[in-house]
């Protein structure tokens, strides 16, 4: 009986995730063939499928493989990071509004990245490390602030998140004011989420963080399901609540840190994607976490394709597009729900 329902869950998860994976591949291909420079459609598809001699000039080849694909991969990784972290926070904190940006975790990672840039500017590895530390510290502070005698109520949590977010925003303004003018320009862009300027090492670090973060969160999905009933009930059912809480916080901070270090603060992904997933497929975290990962990748790649093409050859920061799509979508979801 139990094995039967587990099998049904597995089948359902597999088929939904398969469908999302297929969507992701289609979106990647579409994103790869459109951009500010027009590339020959057939030849691009041919080159993307791994064949050589597709008739692309060396310049077109460089645009497709050195600039566009790495950026698409980074967009996908950032989407996975933010949506999975959002799903994790929402399950752990039993709060539908818990999201990296609203909780102040993104800003914590942003401050960490800025400190890394100011003090260890040359060392690229320092950015994700400091972003991770910043995200972890911010989420810890928010959690401590929100925890009253009666536990962390949704209202207290959001309030604590807003306080930490605005405090850290002021810290960011303070740091940018102290920096020289040439750096301010790159920061104002980066703060809104910027996916250009991908380097192989940043991409590698982000992918490693994605793998670790998603696997750890997915492995704790069953415990998170039980914790959604209430932490005391989960404890009675054998879940090591405090251990799971620490693990989820660390994994989510790792994801947020990696995404902020490589692309700044891309808002709304962690909010909109898990909500859409739960509305469509229910709130079993074993499915929600993996489906959010895939959906997040689709969402950010889609948004970045708009950001880099809509006013070509100029560009918009991707965070402006995710917010423009995310905010109205979220209002719609709220009203419908």
């Amino acid at each position, binding site marked *: 009986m139990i094995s039967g329902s587990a099998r049904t869950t597995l089948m359902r998860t597999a088929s939904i995730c398969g469908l999302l994976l297929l969507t992701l591949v289609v979106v990647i291909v579409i994103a790869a063939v459109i951009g500010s420079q027009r590339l020959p459609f057939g030849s691009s598809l041919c080159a993307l499928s791994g064949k050589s001699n597709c008739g692309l000039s060396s310049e077109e080849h460089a645009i497709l493989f050195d600039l566009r694909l790495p950026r698409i991969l980074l967009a996908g990784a950032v989407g996975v990071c933010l949506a999975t972290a959002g799903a994790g926070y929402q399950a752990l904190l039993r709060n539908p509004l818990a999201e990296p940006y609203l909780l102040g975790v993104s800003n914590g990672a942003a401050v960490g990245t800025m400190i890394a840039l100011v003090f260890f500017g040359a060392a690229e590895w320092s950015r994700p490390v400091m972003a991770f530390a910043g995200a972890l510290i911010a989420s810890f502070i928010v959690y401590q602030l929100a925890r009253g005698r009666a536990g962390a109520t949704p209202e207290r949590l959001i309030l604590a998140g807003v306080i930490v977010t605005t405090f850290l925003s002021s810290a960011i303004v303070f740091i940018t004011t102290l920096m020289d003018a040439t750096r301010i320009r790159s920061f104002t862009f980066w703060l809104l989420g910027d996916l250009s300027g991908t380097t192989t090492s940043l991409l590698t670090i982000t992918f490693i963080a994605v793998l670790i973060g998603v696997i750890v969160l997915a492995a704790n999905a069953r415990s998170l399901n039980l914790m959604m009933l209430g932490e005391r009930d989960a404890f009675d059912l054998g879940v090591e609540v405090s251990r799971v809480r620490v693990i989820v916080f660390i994994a989510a901070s790792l994801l947020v840190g990696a995404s902020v270090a490589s692309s700044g603060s891309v808002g709304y992904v962690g909010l909109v994607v898990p909500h859409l997933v739960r509305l469509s497929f229910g709130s079993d975290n074993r499915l929600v976490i993996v489906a959010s990962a895939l959906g997040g990748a689709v969402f950010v790649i889609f948004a970045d394709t708009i950001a880099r093409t809509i006013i070509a050859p*100029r560009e918009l920061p991707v965070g402006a597009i995710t917010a423009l799509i995310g905010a109205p979508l979220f209002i719609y979801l709220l009203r419908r729900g």
Partner: protein
Amino acid sequence: MGAGERLVGDTTYCDYPEAAKSVAKVGDTMHPSVERIIALKPQIVLVSTASQLEAFTKQLDEQHIAVYVTNPRNLDEVFRSIETLGDLFGSHDRAASLVADLRRRAAAVAAATKPTPPVRIFYQVSDSPLYTIGREAYLTDLIRRAGGVSVTADVPGAFPRFSDEAALASNPDAIILPTGGSMGNANSTVAPAFKGSPAVLNNRIYKINEDHLQRPGPRLVDGLEEMARALHPEAFK
């Protein structure tokens, strides 16, 4: 123009001529302190480009302090703003002779570079994120006068954020890096998108003192000459 001793305050970026450094500072160009400006009791405040400064100029208006904004789109407008300042300071003749000299030097550059075909140039304002100059930038005009043509001359805006792949496809023959000077060594490498461009392959990357190019004053003609010499060394033998 001989009005230097009448300058009561400037910004932390103002470092030319040398005497400008020892004047009271009112903050940087992005965050000037209106209180300090008012405390210095100036008769007029000179502002370059009006962007973001609407509230600021309104406050000065209320204190009956005149504001003169320059936002030059080409070299002629830079010259005209120097002449206007000469009129404001009552030193019309000195400004006129300064501008006449600058015009003569600019004309000499134009004459020297005229016989050579223009070089296709990418002007890199910053490498990461990639910023360049667009059709509203006076630098687009300056490049034309130096015997070049900006590959981004038709892009809307003055200093647009530019797409990496459009940069790659622009295939410039030369890249100009405004760097050094008060910028230190920022912007001293070309963006990775230019890896395979003729500019990089033929090593036609020219670093030009940022202070001479991105501060639209009399030194702009120095920048023009430096740029023309870099692009067309044969024309200045």
